[in-house]
């Protein structure tokens, strides 16, 4: 069962039977980190992330059909998560992350400072505009290719690349003092 592809596991679940539960468990183990990373970075809120994360898998399970022409299970799952994240962001419970007024420039010398730098990085990413943040997360966190991202987001490949470029440049500019310390 472990050697089977995502699509084969999906078909196992769709057909039901004795192996369906095991197949779904395997799919969860493989794809849950991707869903979590995407939700976590898109929502910036652990509580909302948990709700969207669980609902994503429930909707995924409900939508499993044996006659569906499934070609990319991860992409299908991310699309579900994306719609749910969109709804969550529009809900009253969602609050925009705010960038600290000042990012201290400091040398990263120990583990604590490394963690602090990582937190700053996360904060900056959470504050990126959605249209730039989303392709960045899909590429850097979920490992999607630019072509797969273009299918999920329904934009051109060139647009995906441009937005990724812009996202990284924004992060760099926001973290410039801390990064300068880091790379000096």
């Amino acid at each position, binding site marked *: 069962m472990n050697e089977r592809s995502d699509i084969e596991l999906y078909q196992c679940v769709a057909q039901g039977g004795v192996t369906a539960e095991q197949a779904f468990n395997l799919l969860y183990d493989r794809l849950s980190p991707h869903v979590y990373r995407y939700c976590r970075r898109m929502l910036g809120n652990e509580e909302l992330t*948990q709700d969207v*994360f669980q609902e994503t898998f*429930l909707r995924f399970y*409900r939508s499993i059909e044996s006659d569906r022409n499934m070609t990319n299970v991860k992409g299908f799952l991310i699309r579900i998560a994306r719609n749910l994240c969109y709804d969550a962001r529009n809900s009253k419970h969602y609050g925009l992350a705010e960038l600290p007024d000042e990012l201290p420039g400091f040398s990263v010398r120990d583990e604590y400072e490394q963690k602090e730098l*990582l937190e700053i*990085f996360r904060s900056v990413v959470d504050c990126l505009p959605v249209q730039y943040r989303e392709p960045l997360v899909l590429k*850097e966190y979920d490992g999607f290719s630019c072509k797969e991202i273009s299918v999920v987001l329904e934009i051109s490949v060139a647009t995906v*690349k441009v937005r990724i*470029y812009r996202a990284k440049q924004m992060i760099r500019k926001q973290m410039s003092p801390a990064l300068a310390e880091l790379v000096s």
Partner: protein
Amino acid sequence: MNAYDATSPSDLLIAFLEGDLQEMHEDLLFSHLSGNPGLRLEMRELIAVNRLSSVDAQSLQPPSEWKAAVMSDVQELRNASVRDEPRRPIALPWFRTGALAVLTMLFGVLGTLGVQYLVQGDAVIRDVRPATVTNPQEVVEPLGAAKERTKQESDGSVSPGTDTGRSITAQSASSPVLAGNDVGVIIDHDFPEQRTHRVPSASTNEREALSADSEEELHRPKVLKESSVLLVENDFIVDEPVPSASPDAVLPQPLSPDLSVRPEHVEIGYRNTIGSAYPNVVLPSELDQQDADAGINGASLSLLYRLDEHHLIGLETGRDVFPQIYRGTENGEQIRYEQKPVLFWVGAAYQYRTGSVLFDGLHPFVRVIAGGTDAGPLTKGVAGFQFIPERRVALTLGVEGSALLYRYQGDWFSSRSLDFTYGLSISF
């Protein structure tokens, strides 16, 4: 078309780091890097961003306890009992249900008449003509009278052709008795002991045609002995004793059913039921509809017409709780619905009530109801006793079984009940 601006050193740099830089632009980028320290710093910072994003991605793992919650939800979906908004699988629209009830009632009526006709066996329902005919040959006489006349004629005591009485003997005919207005005394050769059944003439013309003597004779034939006769119940009661037949004479046969509608034959009834229904459905209180208007759940009203002392037909309607459990597939998943809708039902009813048993007024009965609800066809069967202390009142006690059929995604399901029933009927 490139995703980057070839004139911008930053774009060239980032395209290079993303692996998108075209070969023809690489020399351009390297020349920028060699002459621009700021660009080299920018490159190192972008590399750091890439590393940070990689570290952040690896650090983001879903909490292990979330898996148990997801699997628990999925398991619940597999055996879902949807208990939110109740659904009613529509099996038959109302008009089809109504058509079914009408057809069933017609079947019941025809069947009842047919059964009654069969019960009378070879009983000859003869054509009865009003006694206005002047042709002596058409004067109907009891068989006994004919024999008596023959005897009298043979011994000379009576001249041939003299009428010894104007009681009517039904002619031998295959046509049914003229309904309603005729005075008829039906003689059945095979059942000499049967009661007389008289239907007073409603036609004044016919009455006038009869002589006073003959009319009297009609009611009191000479050849018949006077004796008390078992009186038929209700409207069939004969106020005065009806002469019973002599061994030689054959008593008239009850007429075929009078198909005219008589108010006194109408029974209005109310019944209530207490009992158990299947399948057993337990719902949260906010979803359980049966408590609303609980007083009328299980109640029914009936409007029956008494064809004769045994047979009644009509309509019955009521309201009941019908527990439902049904299964199907939605969005690729197996799903099960449980609900307890309260539905109105209506149906055609047929009842058979026997004569008194054990003591006067206690009558076993059975009633069959065929109809439906807006969920599907319904059938009920009731059996028990009716106590009739007085002609217009009947108390009912018995057992009722019912079955509702309904359909969901091509599969049939049923809701059944077995109840104790009690009620009251009133006639006009």
